[in-house]
Protein backbone atom coordinates (compact mmCIF):
# COMPACT_ATOMS: atom_id res chain seq x y z
CA UNK A 1 0.00 0.00 0.00
CA UNK A 2 1.33 3.43 -0.92
CA UNK A 3 0.81 6.13 1.72
CA UNK A 4 1.33 9.81 0.87
CA UNK A 5 1.57 12.83 3.17
CA UNK A 6 1.12 16.47 2.17
CA UNK A 7 1.60 19.91 3.74
CA UNK A 8 2.18 19.81 7.52
CA UNK A 9 1.54 16.06 7.67
CA UNK A 10 4.59 15.65 5.45
CA UNK A 11 6.54 18.00 7.70
CA UNK A 12 5.53 16.11 10.87
CA UNK A 13 6.14 12.59 9.55
CA UNK A 14 9.26 13.75 7.70
CA UNK A 15 8.07 11.56 4.79
CA UNK A 16 6.33 12.40 1.53
CA UNK A 17 5.59 8.85 0.50
CA UNK A 18 6.09 5.36 1.96
CA UNK A 19 5.29 1.80 0.96
CA UNK A 20 3.80 -0.04 3.89
CA UNK A 21 2.37 -3.48 4.61
CA UNK A 22 -0.33 -3.03 7.26
CA UNK A 23 -1.24 -6.06 9.38
CA UNK A 24 -3.95 -8.46 8.21
CA UNK A 25 -7.36 -7.20 9.18
CA UNK A 26 -6.61 -3.58 8.28
CA UNK A 27 -9.80 -2.89 6.36
CA UNK A 28 -10.53 0.82 6.84
CA UNK A 29 -8.71 4.16 6.83
CA UNK A 30 -9.30 4.39 10.60
CA UNK A 31 -7.54 1.06 11.20
CA UNK A 32 -4.71 2.12 8.89
CA UNK A 33 -4.26 5.34 10.89
CA UNK A 34 -3.93 3.33 14.13
CA UNK A 35 -1.16 1.27 12.51
CA UNK A 36 0.61 4.33 11.06
CA UNK A 37 0.51 6.24 14.37
CA UNK A 38 2.78 3.62 15.93
CA UNK A 39 5.46 3.90 13.26
CA UNK A 40 7.29 6.91 14.73
CA UNK A 41 6.79 9.88 17.07
CA UNK A 42 6.43 12.00 13.92
CA UNK A 43 3.58 9.83 12.67
CA UNK A 44 1.92 10.02 16.10
CA UNK A 45 2.20 13.82 15.99
CA UNK A 46 0.79 14.00 12.45
CA UNK A 47 -2.29 11.99 13.44
CA UNK A 48 -2.76 13.56 16.86
CA UNK A 49 -5.74 15.72 15.84
CA UNK A 50 -7.76 13.71 13.35
CA UNK A 51 -10.36 16.48 12.96
CA UNK A 52 -7.62 18.43 11.12
CA UNK A 53 -6.74 15.55 8.79
CA UNK A 54 -8.36 14.73 5.47
CA UNK A 55 -7.87 11.54 3.46
CA UNK A 56 -8.09 10.39 -0.13
CA UNK A 57 -8.15 6.73 -1.20
CA UNK A 58 -7.03 6.20 -4.79
CA UNK A 59 -7.31 9.98 -5.31
CA UNK A 60 -10.95 10.26 -4.19
CA UNK A 61 -11.89 11.94 -0.91
CA UNK A 62 -12.76 9.48 1.83
CA UNK A 63 -13.14 9.31 5.60
CA UNK A 64 -12.11 7.04 8.49
CA UNK A 65 -14.66 4.41 7.42
CA UNK A 66 -13.50 4.22 3.80
CA UNK A 67 -12.30 0.68 2.94
CA UNK A 68 -8.61 0.14 2.12
CA UNK A 69 -6.89 -2.86 0.61
CA UNK A 70 -3.49 -4.01 -0.64
CA UNK A 71 -2.36 -1.93 -3.63
CA UNK A 72 -4.36 1.18 -2.70
CA UNK A 73 -2.90 4.69 -2.70
CA UNK A 74 -3.89 6.45 0.51
CA UNK A 75 -3.08 10.14 1.04
CA UNK A 76 -3.32 12.19 4.24
CA UNK A 77 -3.41 15.99 4.23
CA UNK A 78 -4.96 19.04 5.92
CA UNK A 79 -8.09 20.74 4.56
CA UNK A 80 -7.22 22.17 1.15
CA UNK A 81 -6.29 25.85 0.71
CA UNK A 82 -5.83 26.41 -3.03
CA UNK A 83 -7.30 29.04 -5.31
Amino acid sequence: MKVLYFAWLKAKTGIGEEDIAPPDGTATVGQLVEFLKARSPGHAAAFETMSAVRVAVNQDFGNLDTPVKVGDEVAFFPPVTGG
Partner: protein
Amino acid sequence: MTIRVQREDFDPGAELARFSSGKTNVGGICLFVGLVRDYMGHDPASGAQVNGMTLEHYPGMTERQLEAIEAEARKRWPLDDALVIHRYGRLEPGERIVLVAASSAHRDAAFEACRFLIDWLKTKAPFWKVEHTPQGDAWVDAKESDDAAASRWDQAKA
Protein backbone atom coordinates in the same frame (compact mmCIF):
# COMPACT_ATOMS: atom_id res chain seq x y z
CA MET B 1 -12.59 22.18 -21.60
CA THR B 2 -9.01 22.64 -20.47
CA ILE B 3 -7.24 22.01 -17.16
CA ARG B 4 -3.65 23.10 -16.60
CA VAL B 5 -1.59 22.68 -13.44
CA GLN B 6 1.74 24.40 -13.87
CA ARG B 7 4.67 26.06 -12.11
CA GLU B 8 5.09 28.87 -14.66
CA ASP B 9 3.08 32.09 -14.90
CA PHE B 10 0.31 32.59 -17.46
CA ASP B 11 -0.80 35.63 -19.47
CA PRO B 12 -4.53 36.30 -18.85
CA GLY B 13 -4.83 38.38 -22.03
CA ALA B 14 -3.33 35.65 -24.18
CA GLU B 15 -5.45 33.01 -22.44
CA LEU B 16 -8.61 35.04 -23.02
CA ALA B 17 -7.71 35.58 -26.69
CA ARG B 18 -7.15 31.85 -27.17
CA PHE B 19 -10.26 30.92 -25.18
CA SER B 20 -12.52 33.25 -27.18
CA SER B 21 -10.97 32.53 -30.58
CA GLY B 22 -13.48 31.19 -33.11
CA LYS B 23 -16.40 31.18 -30.67
CA THR B 24 -19.19 32.64 -32.75
CA ASN B 25 -22.03 31.06 -30.78
CA VAL B 26 -20.94 32.46 -27.40
CA GLY B 27 -22.50 35.57 -25.92
CA GLY B 28 -20.17 36.01 -22.97
CA ILE B 29 -17.03 34.87 -21.19
CA CYS B 30 -16.47 35.37 -17.48
CA LEU B 31 -12.86 35.12 -16.33
CA PHE B 32 -11.48 35.25 -12.77
CA VAL B 33 -7.81 35.63 -11.82
CA GLY B 34 -6.60 35.05 -8.25
CA LEU B 35 -3.47 36.81 -6.95
CA VAL B 36 -1.10 36.41 -3.99
CA ARG B 37 -1.83 38.96 -1.22
CA ASP B 38 0.96 40.45 0.90
CA TYR B 39 -0.88 40.06 4.22
CA MET B 40 -2.40 37.19 6.19
CA GLY B 41 -6.11 36.68 6.71
CA HIS B 42 -8.93 38.99 5.65
CA ASP B 43 -7.91 42.39 7.01
CA PRO B 44 -4.94 44.24 5.48
CA ALA B 45 -4.67 46.53 8.54
CA SER B 46 -4.24 43.75 11.12
CA GLY B 47 -2.89 40.96 8.93
CA ALA B 48 0.78 40.04 9.33
CA GLN B 49 3.10 40.67 6.42
CA VAL B 50 3.52 37.88 3.88
CA ASN B 51 6.69 37.85 1.78
CA GLY B 52 5.48 35.08 -0.50
CA MET B 53 4.01 31.61 -0.46
CA THR B 54 4.64 28.13 -1.75
CA LEU B 55 1.82 26.03 -3.14
CA GLU B 56 2.04 22.28 -2.87
CA HIS B 57 -0.39 19.94 -4.61
CA TYR B 58 -1.18 16.26 -5.11
CA PRO B 59 -0.24 15.48 -8.73
CA GLY B 60 -2.81 13.21 -10.29
CA MET B 61 -5.57 13.88 -7.79
CA THR B 62 -5.40 17.61 -8.55
CA GLU B 63 -6.16 17.11 -12.23
CA ARG B 64 -8.81 14.53 -11.40
CA GLN B 65 -10.59 16.85 -8.98
CA LEU B 66 -10.41 19.84 -11.33
CA GLU B 67 -11.90 17.71 -14.11
CA ALA B 68 -14.71 16.62 -11.78
CA ILE B 69 -15.41 20.24 -10.79
CA GLU B 70 -15.57 21.32 -14.43
CA ALA B 71 -17.84 18.39 -15.28
CA GLU B 72 -20.15 19.42 -12.43
CA ALA B 73 -20.26 23.01 -13.75
CA ARG B 74 -21.18 21.75 -17.20
CA LYS B 75 -24.00 19.67 -15.70
CA ARG B 76 -25.41 22.72 -13.92
CA TRP B 77 -25.10 25.37 -16.64
CA PRO B 78 -25.28 25.31 -20.45
CA LEU B 79 -21.57 26.08 -20.91
CA ASP B 80 -19.81 26.31 -24.21
CA ASP B 81 -16.38 25.83 -22.65
CA ALA B 82 -14.40 26.14 -19.42
CA LEU B 83 -10.75 26.78 -18.59
CA VAL B 84 -8.89 26.28 -15.30
CA ILE B 85 -5.20 27.12 -14.80
CA HIS B 86 -3.66 26.66 -11.34
CA ARG B 87 -0.04 27.29 -10.43
CA TYR B 88 2.10 25.61 -7.79
CA GLY B 89 5.56 26.26 -6.34
CA ARG B 90 6.96 29.51 -4.92
CA LEU B 91 4.90 32.65 -5.63
CA GLU B 92 5.57 36.29 -4.67
CA PRO B 93 2.94 38.89 -3.60
CA GLY B 94 1.07 40.18 -6.63
CA GLU B 95 1.73 37.07 -8.69
CA ARG B 96 -1.13 35.23 -10.35
CA ILE B 97 -2.12 31.89 -8.76
CA VAL B 98 -5.24 30.77 -10.56
CA LEU B 99 -7.42 31.52 -13.57
CA VAL B 100 -10.91 30.20 -14.20
CA ALA B 101 -13.05 31.08 -17.19
CA ALA B 102 -16.45 29.99 -18.46
CA SER B 103 -18.15 30.77 -21.74
CA SER B 104 -21.82 30.46 -22.56
CA ALA B 105 -24.47 31.74 -24.92
CA HIS B 106 -25.72 34.07 -22.16
CA ARG B 107 -23.94 35.96 -19.42
CA ASP B 108 -25.83 34.57 -16.41
CA ALA B 109 -24.48 31.06 -16.96
CA ALA B 110 -20.94 32.39 -17.56
CA PHE B 111 -20.95 34.49 -14.36
CA GLU B 112 -22.46 31.78 -12.18
CA ALA B 113 -20.32 28.95 -13.52
CA CYS B 114 -17.14 31.03 -13.11
CA ARG B 115 -18.01 31.74 -9.47
CA PHE B 116 -18.92 28.09 -8.90
CA LEU B 117 -15.62 26.88 -10.39
CA ILE B 118 -13.47 29.02 -8.09
CA ASP B 119 -15.64 28.36 -5.02
CA TRP B 120 -15.55 24.59 -5.45
CA LEU B 121 -11.89 24.59 -6.44
CA LYS B 122 -11.00 26.30 -3.16
CA THR B 123 -12.57 23.54 -1.07
CA LYS B 124 -12.10 20.46 -3.26
CA ALA B 125 -8.84 20.69 -5.23
CA PRO B 126 -5.84 19.32 -3.29
CA PHE B 127 -3.62 22.40 -3.02
CA TRP B 128 -2.00 23.69 0.16
CA LYS B 129 -0.41 27.09 0.79
CA VAL B 130 2.43 27.79 3.16
CA GLU B 131 2.99 31.52 3.72
CA HIS B 132 6.50 32.88 4.18
CA THR B 133 6.46 35.63 6.80
CA PRO B 134 9.14 37.53 8.75
CA GLN B 135 8.18 35.29 11.73
CA GLY B 136 8.70 32.09 9.74
CA ASP B 137 6.62 29.77 7.59
CA ALA B 138 2.95 29.13 8.39
CA TRP B 139 0.57 26.69 6.71
CA VAL B 140 -2.62 28.48 5.73
CA ASP B 141 -5.73 27.24 7.54
CA ALA B 142 -8.87 26.45 5.58
CA LYS B 143 -11.34 29.33 5.84
CA GLU B 144 -14.91 28.95 7.04
CA SER B 145 -15.85 31.65 4.53
CA ASP B 146 -14.58 29.40 1.72
CA ASP B 147 -16.63 26.46 3.02
CA ALA B 148 -19.68 28.74 3.19
CA ALA B 149 -19.08 29.98 -0.36
CA ALA B 150 -18.80 26.41 -1.64
CA SER B 151 -21.82 25.12 0.30
CA ARG B 152 -23.95 27.91 -1.17
CA TRP B 153 -23.82 25.87 -4.38
CA ASP B 154 -24.89 22.69 -2.57
CA GLN B 155 -28.06 24.49 -1.54
CA ALA B 156 -28.50 25.91 -5.01
CA LYS B 157 -28.51 22.39 -6.38
CA ALA B 158 -31.04 21.05 -3.86
